[in-house]
């Protein structure tokens, strides 16, 4: 019984959904039954372009995230090791941190066109903040005793960076990545909902406009599964790479 406890609330929620769907009080459009959603979910993968749509969304999310990861880690490292650069860039990043970058999307459409480029650019911008801030924080707080001992033992600047600073910062970098990956998913879905002709976000809006709620919810489930798997993959990669410091995997 005790081991089943985590499942109780999930099962109750699903049962409540099914009861509401079958009660007939609400139209099928408002509350499609789990059966209909399941059918659409399976049906989605028999579509000719199913993988293409998934790939389109993933490609945008990964493109933006990858660029942000490369640029963000580099910038954060430089900011963490050089006081001058930090004093110049830190006000820029912390000042505009709370500003929703999504507001720039209409302008990005004009600058980069309505294709993938404007979406990738926006995802890059949104992902850049958490990565830069966490990397900066990590590179700044490297234990000075380690730096001194490395110096004492005759390590060069390059060796100190590679053997001391980078390993010590990696946990922080991954913490930034874990914030950035869901952000990339959110932004890709939003931008595809606002302006797009392909991708999963577009399918959600398109199914809604055709009043195929069951199909829409099937796509929502697919997006949810992708988001969940990406997060799990990231945690797995982190624990492999940073084998000396396990994440508090109580739940997360």
């Amino acid at each position, binding site marked *: 019984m005790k081991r089943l*406890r985590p499942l109780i609330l999930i099962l109750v929620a699903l049962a409540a959904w099914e009861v509401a769907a079958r009660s007939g009080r609400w139209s099928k459009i408002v509350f499609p039954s789990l059966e209909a959603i399941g059918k659409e979910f399976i049906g989605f993968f028999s579509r000719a372009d199913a993988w293409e749509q998934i790939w389109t969304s993933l490609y945008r999310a990964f493109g933006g995230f990858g660029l942000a990861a490369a640029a963000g880690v580099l910038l954060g490292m430089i900011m963490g090791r050089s006081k001058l650069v930090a004093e110049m860039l830190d006000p820029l990043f912390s000042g505009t941190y709370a500003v929703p970058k999504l*507001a720039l999307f209409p302008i990005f459409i004009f*600058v980069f066109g309505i294709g993938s480029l404007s979406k990738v650019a926006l995802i890059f911008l949104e992902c850049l903040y958490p990565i830069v801030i966490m990397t900066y924080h990590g590179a700044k707080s490297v234990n000075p005793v380690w730096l001194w001992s490395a110096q004492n033992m005759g390590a060069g600047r390059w060796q100190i960076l590679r053997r001391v600073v980078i390993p010590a910062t990696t946990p922080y970098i991954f913490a930034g990545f874990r914030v950035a990956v869901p952000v990339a998913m959110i932004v890709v879905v939003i931008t595809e909902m606002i302006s797009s002709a392909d991708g999963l976000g577009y399918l959600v809006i398109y199914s809604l406009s055709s009043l195929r709620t069951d199909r829409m919810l099937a796509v929502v489930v697919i997006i949810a599964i992708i988001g969940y798997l990406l997060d799990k993959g990231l945690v797995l990669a982190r624990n492999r790479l940073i084998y000396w410091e396990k994440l508090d995997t109580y*739940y997360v």
Partner: protein
Amino acid sequence: MALLVVWQLASLRGLPDYVLSPIDIGRHFIAALGTSELYIDAGASLMRAIPGFVIGTVLGVALGLAAGIWKSFDEMLSPLVFLSYPVPKIVMLPVFMLWFGIGDLSKVLIIALACFYPSFINAFYGARATPRILVWSARNMGASQAQIFGRVVLPGALPLIFAGMRVSLALSFIVMFATEMINARSGLGYLIRQAENGLRFDLMYVALLAIAILGYAGDRLLRYSREKLLPWEGGHA
């Protein structure tokens, strides 16, 4: 600052019409402050973001603290929360539109949903991380359950709760803006959409600047109250 100067200098040399110079943006913004249009839309946006933020963070912090304290509650609720945490909540907007209509209610609820997660998770970890020794010593000195919560658990969890609220605030603005761009008849997101369709670039930048100022002001307010409430934590967030 240097960025602004470079931008202004670049604009003197001629730019495409969709990039305005900072001085032009400032002029348009001041002109817009004189009209009522901007206030109405900014008010409409805040009427969605603030209730959503308050509902989401209050529920998130309360349930998160409860899950952090009571083991059985934690075992029931946490798997559901952590399972759905990496899922982009904005995909629920169309579903909410069906259930709660296309008006403000569905927008407020989706903002609340997005704000719930960071608040819950931070409050949960904050309460769980309370050092056992502090709880034991409080109990030894005869503190009641309520006293232990009010004097030991809550102050210990507050720094993390504020960190969660800061993320929630930024999220509430993003989600507010997204919902308004997808479907709304008022608000700053709608204003930007309208300006985009009408090729009114000046209006677009004005709305952008207004959102930036509101987001920045909200963040400052949160930091200020954090410093007042947590004097022992120091100023930096």
